[in-house]
């Protein structure tokens, strides 16, 4: 009896030391709900796949809370090895030269295989420096697509299998939907003044959002989204708003847009491709999926859309350098086609490698799940150019806030599209001047 116990004790002690030996790599993230669970699952599977490193995921609240927590911790010397940062924080992270350990450098130092050509360029391109080096590890990326209510289309006498291809078509269809009484409004969108309604509108129509390749070329870039086409588009939104075709989805994320679509008040809804699961769960009607409409008054050849979401940044200053080896190993693990495909198919986020996309095709995933590859096709059409590679500006969240207020002024009839975008650009450029001053000596 006593012998058995002591053997058991020895075994416990042994297993304890072996787990002690694993180097802990902390990973602060902002994913709640089911996604958070899936994320922890990914970490767990990595930990089980090898015994040298242990990824410790810690939930740190919303995106802004997580970023602030990481910065507070960095200033106090308590930073995590990896932190998940949303795309509007990208400018802040890129400017923090000494605080960030660029991913391409990390992989090189750790001797991990790293071939940027295997990644989907529109995804990683958003996070590269001007020399094309990838600075952070794409984790959850998405792009806006169009969802529509097939039942309402049918009721309005439209073909439920044909989605609007252009904004003009969307306007026509909306008028028909409203006048036939099939629904109260034609369309609504999330991020109406920012990610969807301005950043992606500009990218798809190949219009500049700012100077210096939309900010990729340096911190002295300034905003130029107040072009005539964008202004005309905002004026058009106002007209659609007045005749009931368009319903404003609210500021920032546009939280009012989803219930307007789910309650069948609006027939069309534009939001992140990662909302697909949410849309399916909440729609008591047949949903159609389509690419974002383009403006045929501006272009006949729509460009790729741009992404949003978050990436994983590695922070400098860990005392134990082994931690960085662990982070590099983890990133290699994350890039594996099966891991990527599983994450992409479960969450609805874009895959980051071509191999993961091909694996999904082989598995027949896209055939079984209509609409699930629209986002991938949309970001990979054509070659990304300076206007469609993405936008990179410091304090983008504040620029977006300013634009929300401007679009509201347009919809309330206080400003024209041109005035509002001019004012927005002025406010945004003041924010950028500040940012540049704070981040350079």
């Amino acid at each position, binding site marked *: 009896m006593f012998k058995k116990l002591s053997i058991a004790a020895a075994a416990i002690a042994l297993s304890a030391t072996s787990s002690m030996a694993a180097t802990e790599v*902390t990973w*602060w993230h*902002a*994913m*709640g*709900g*089911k*996604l*958070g*669970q899936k*994320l*922890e699952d990914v970490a767990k599977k990595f930990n089980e796949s090898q015994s040298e490193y242990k990824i410790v995921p*810690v*939930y*740190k*609240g*919303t995106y802004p*809370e997580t970023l*602030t*927590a990481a*910065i*507070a*911790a960095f*200033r*106090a*010397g*308590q930073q*995590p090895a990896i932190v998940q940062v949303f795309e509007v924080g990208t400018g802040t992270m890129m400017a923090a030269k000494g605080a960030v350990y660029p991913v391409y450098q990390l992989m090189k130092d750790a001797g991990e295989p790293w071939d940027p050509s295997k990644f989907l360029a529109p995804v990683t391109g958003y996070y590269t420096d001007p020399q094309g080096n990838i600075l952070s590890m794409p984790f*959850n990326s*998405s792009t806006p697509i169009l969802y529509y209510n097939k039942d309402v289309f049918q009721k309005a006498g439209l073909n439920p299998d044909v989605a609007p291809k252009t904004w003009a078509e969307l306007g026509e269809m909306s008028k028909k939907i409203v006048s036939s009484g099939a629904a109260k409004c034609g369309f609504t969108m999330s991020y109406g003044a920012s990610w969807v309604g301005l950043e992606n509108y500009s990218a798809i129509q190949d219009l500049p959002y700012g100077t210096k390749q939309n900010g990729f070329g340096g911190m002295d870039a300034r905003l130029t989204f107040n072009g005539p086409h964008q202004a005309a588009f905002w004026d058009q939104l106002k007209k659609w708003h007045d005749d009931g075709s368009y319903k404003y989805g609210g500021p920032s994320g546009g939280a009012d847009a*989803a*219930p307007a679509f*789910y*309650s*069948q008040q609006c027939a069309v809804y534009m939001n*992140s491709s*990662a*909302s697909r*699961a*949410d849309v399916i*769960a*909440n*729609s*008591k009607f047949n949903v159609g999926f389509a690419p974002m409409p383009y403006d045929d008054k501006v272009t006949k050849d729509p460009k790729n859309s741009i992404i949003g979401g978050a990436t994983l940044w590695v922070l400098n200053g860990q005392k134990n350098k082994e931690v960085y080896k662990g982070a590099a190993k983890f990133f290699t693990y994350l890039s594996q086609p099966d891991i990527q495909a599983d994450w992409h198919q479960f*969450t*609805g*986020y874009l895959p980051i490698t071509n191999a993961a996309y091909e694996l999904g095709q082989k598995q027949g995933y896209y055939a079984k799940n209509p609409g699930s590859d629209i986002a991938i096709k949309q970001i990979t059409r054509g070659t990304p150019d300076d206007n469609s590679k993405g936008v990179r500006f410091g304090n983008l969240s504040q620029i977006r806030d300013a634009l929300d207020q401007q679009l509201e002024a347009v919809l309330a009839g206080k400003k024209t599209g041109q005035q509002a975008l001019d004012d927005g650009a002025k406010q945004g450029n003041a924010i950028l001047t500040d940012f540049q001053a704070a981040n350079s000596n």
Partner: protein
Amino acid sequence: MVENRPFLNFLTHLVLILGVATVVFPVYLAFIASTRGPADFMTGVVPLTPGDQTWANYGALLGAGSTEAGAPPFLLMLGNSLIMALLVAFGKIAISILSAFAVVYFRFPGRVIAFWIIFMTLMLPIEVRILPTYKVIADLGMLNSFSGLVIPVIASATATFLFRQFFLTIPEETMEAARVDGAGPLKFFWDILLPLSRTNIAALFIIMFIFGWNQYLWPMLITTEPHYYTVVMGIKRLAAVLDGDTQWNLVMAGVILAALPPVLVIIFMQRLFVKGLVETEK
């Protein structure tokens, strides 16, 4: 009651019923949401009658629901919140009744400055001084500890100010009589001031308990270990779904469950309120 006025009594109840109905309505709505399916609140005008998912939702939350969302078990979070709330409530009341006693019943150099220093804590929300405050806690080695969670939020101008207001209303004769009886300041405090303050302590206890109970940002920032999770952190984590579908029913069930312990505290504390009433009737 001094006299019986049927119309006034009727009016009183009418105001109360209407007032309570208005004030409680949002809470009622949360309850309704917690009895329905996840999509019911997004697909039409918000319903006003309970659904049939009550047991399923609460069962799921107390069972696997919160762990499925990546948060620790619900009961563990309730326990953490309870520890935090009790420590905050007792701590705040203890230190501030002492300082209010000092400010009102003594004259000493630096008295006004001390009061204003304490008072200023009302005026800079934690979000503004979060980076330096975090650094202080980190330098003192208080990250990931209950002392780090509780002590920085204990300094309360509210409670000191309330006790000051109350002490000033206590008639001068009370203290004069005590001094004639030869009572020193501590005896006076213990035997006379403390019992007199009971109603206010009860009201403050409720407020401070709830304040501690509902802490979110501070625990989120300074802890990295799941066993410090508070119940509000858990709710936020359930609700903060980025692009996926939010389980509104579970979130609202969490809100209702998390509000129950504070409400129990209120019911318990009310005995002190009513006692106060009886004593003034004497």
